[in-house]
């Protein structure tokens, strides 16, 4: 049945939610960010019980509840694309010009993949298994974007040339 409502003289009330926040990274998250910012090193933690290296790090193993606070290991900066997707629509929340490649990258020495962006290559040329390495941001940042993006280790066909530093 077709709906034919009478919309004459119906108000709509525009509004806006403004919810500022400040996330507390905690000691574990802070150490990870400081190592990225100051030393360009990527750190994970190792759960002895599960024989697993976890990146990003966490205070507790979610599988066996072990305390992981002092089990730091260095991983990367190179790794393997475990999977990826290409973002092809532009919207206010998409931080980069499209097409934008988001990838799951398992860093060398890690057992869990890290979500990050791929650059410096034609999006159509990305494949599972591609070897990539971290490109650090020139200026320090307070988030995982201390790593600006990952680029292929070997030269790849590139449509747009080297990726500009975003943020």
């Amino acid at each position: 049945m077709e709906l034919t409502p009478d919309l004459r003289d119906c108000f709509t009330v525009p509004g806006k939610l403004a919810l500022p926040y400040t996330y507390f990274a905690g000691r574990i998250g802070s150490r990870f960010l400081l190592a990225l910012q100051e030393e360009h090193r990527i750190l994970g933690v190792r759960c002895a019980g599960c024989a697993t290296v976890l990146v990003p790090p966490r205070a507790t193993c979610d599988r066996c509840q072990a305390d992981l606070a002092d089990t730091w290991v260095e991983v990367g900066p190179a790794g393997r694309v475990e999977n990826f997707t290409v973002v092809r629509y532009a919207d206010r929340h998409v931080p980069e010009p499209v097409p934008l490649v988001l990838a799951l990258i398992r860093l060398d020495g890690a057992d869990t993949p890290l979500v990050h962006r791929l650059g410096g290559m034609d999006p159509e040329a990305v494949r599972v298994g591609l070897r990539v390495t971290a490109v650090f941001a020139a200026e320090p940042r307070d988030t995982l974007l201390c790593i600006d993006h990952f680029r292929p280790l070997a030269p790849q066909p590139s449509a747009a040339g080297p990726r500009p530093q975003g943020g």
Partner: protein
Amino acid sequence: MKKNRNVGIVGVGQSVYSSHREEVNQPEMIHEAVVEALEMAGITMAEVDCVVHGNMELFEMVHQPDLWHTLGTGAWGKESLRVTTGGTTGATLAAAADHLVASGLHDVVLAIGFEKLQEGHTTGGITNMADPLWGRQLQTGALTGMTAAQMIEEFGAERAKAAAMAYRILMDANAMKNPKAHRRLGLRPDQAEELAANSPALVGELRMIHMCSQSDGACAMIFASEEKARQLCAQPAWIEDHVTAHREEMFCLFGNAPVLTTHRHCARKLFARNGIRDPRREIDLFEMYDPSAWWGLDWLREFLLLEGDEHLRMVESGAIAMDGDFPVNPSGGVIASNPIGATAMVRVAEAALQIMGRAGGHQLPRPVRRALASGFGGTMWTVLFLLASDTERQAAA
């Protein structure tokens, strides 16, 4: 309340309540409470069937926090449920856990309430609770001077203000005994006049000193079936009953005061179906969700079904102090510690600890056989719990 089977509280864990916890992120802070609750119950996550998780919507600007808090909750591979009913969330979490165990669906349920108020913008979140057409441009978030105005009109400014400040100072004396409480100010009765004059005014006669804190913290509780609870715990706190009433009343914008409050409604219902005729004598302790000294004072009358000025006399005489005949909030209450998504759960948890005899420095000097705990939220929402010890249940049988 008709129950398929009895449910006992066998473990309680609380983080320290504080204005700032930069050294831990959200799952790390929750993990502190979970570890303590598991230790008290003497179990590991392997024995927990289901995790119930909740906090205020929007407050930290995290969507579906239960999912990424799995790092700290231990919920990986478990059934889980998220509950968010505003200020009552913590008590609703306890109600949900009770339902899950009483129904027979699960034997052991872990409930977690948390908040990191310093990470977000509380009033921004609360203000958006109001109706976008009738109320959103016209209200003051969680702060209201309405109750102070009503009490001053009814009892005179001098007596009403003095009683509110006496309530505040009594609560601080309790908080001083609770090492996990957030605000422990060491207030003295002889400071009452100075505080009343100098504490910053917020709305009407509601001053900063009357108002609850904004805290970071987490609370975790473990609920077990009667069979399990008896294996795990010498004195579980049994959940006798609970009543929930929600109402959107826009603080009398559309109605004429006085109205039947959800507090009085819940208390009448709870007492009637549990055969309680004289709550002040038949109940040993009340952990009340008291967001401000004015509300704590006023709500004593509602929850205890009192008339006239009897609630004022309870405060003036010290009857609500730890050594009084009807102790209220030995923990220091919400005025001392307010991690909102945990706050109403802390009321149930603290009442349980008193029954279990595990409240530490603020344990009441005499046995607690029957305890009340309340949650508050929304514009006027209530969750009211009745807990009991074995002694009480044997006497009733």
